[in-house]
């Protein structure tokens, strides 16, 4: 599964994207955020307030309870500030 990061989430984690294999017990968005938070200092800093992090599954906005089992690309980013 490919993970992609944007804006300050990308900066804190320190990479643009990565390919990961998830443990079987990580099946939805909120479990993914909890699991990622333990992967290191950068992840912990990026996900410190994980309730503000927005997630997109295969380029569509997703909610905390949405399944990630069949996702190909998951994006993590801060609230959007375009326009």
């Amino acid at each position: 599964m490919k993970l992609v990061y944007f804006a300050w989430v990308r900066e804190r984690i320190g990479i643009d994207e990565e390919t990961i294999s998830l443990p079987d017990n990580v099946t939805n968005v909120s479990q993914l955020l909890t699991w990622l938070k333990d992967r290191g200092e950068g992840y912990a800093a990026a996900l410190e307030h994980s309730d503000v992090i927005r997630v997109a599954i295969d380029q569509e906005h997703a909610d905390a309870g949405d399944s990630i089992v069949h996702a190909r690309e998951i994006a993590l980013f801060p609230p959007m500030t375009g326009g």
Partner: protein
Amino acid sequence: MVKAANISVRVQREDFDVAVEQKRITNGRRDIGAVVSFVGLCRDEQGTLAALELEHYPGMAQSELQRIGQNCTRRWPIQELSIVHRFGKFVPGDNIVLVIAASPHRQAAFDAASFVMDFLKTNAPFWKRQHLTNGENGSWVSAKIEDDQAADRW
């Protein structure tokens, strides 16, 4: 009866010309009665902002703007809807975003343009970073609660 709207979405680094974009929509048409064009520009924040950098999520930026456009044209009798959002580096005065809505009557065109901008602010994957005139670089612009409230009113 208004026929199905044409929705055009572009995510690009290049600048746009409002007159050219508007002409593209109205050229040769006799059925359009109202065109509302909205342009969002980079402002200088009372002289404190030197430049803005806009990062985006390629692919999703395009598809999310398209989704917002479809939701808009389902709600109002819109004939043509055009959305152009730029990315890259901007200085105060530069164009950032353009929304043009064309309809037989003005209210639908006003509402449609407003709706697209409100949802673009909260849902389209773009992020601004500020470069200040005092030399400080790199702070990300925070999302505004008023933007969420603006989208909620629809």
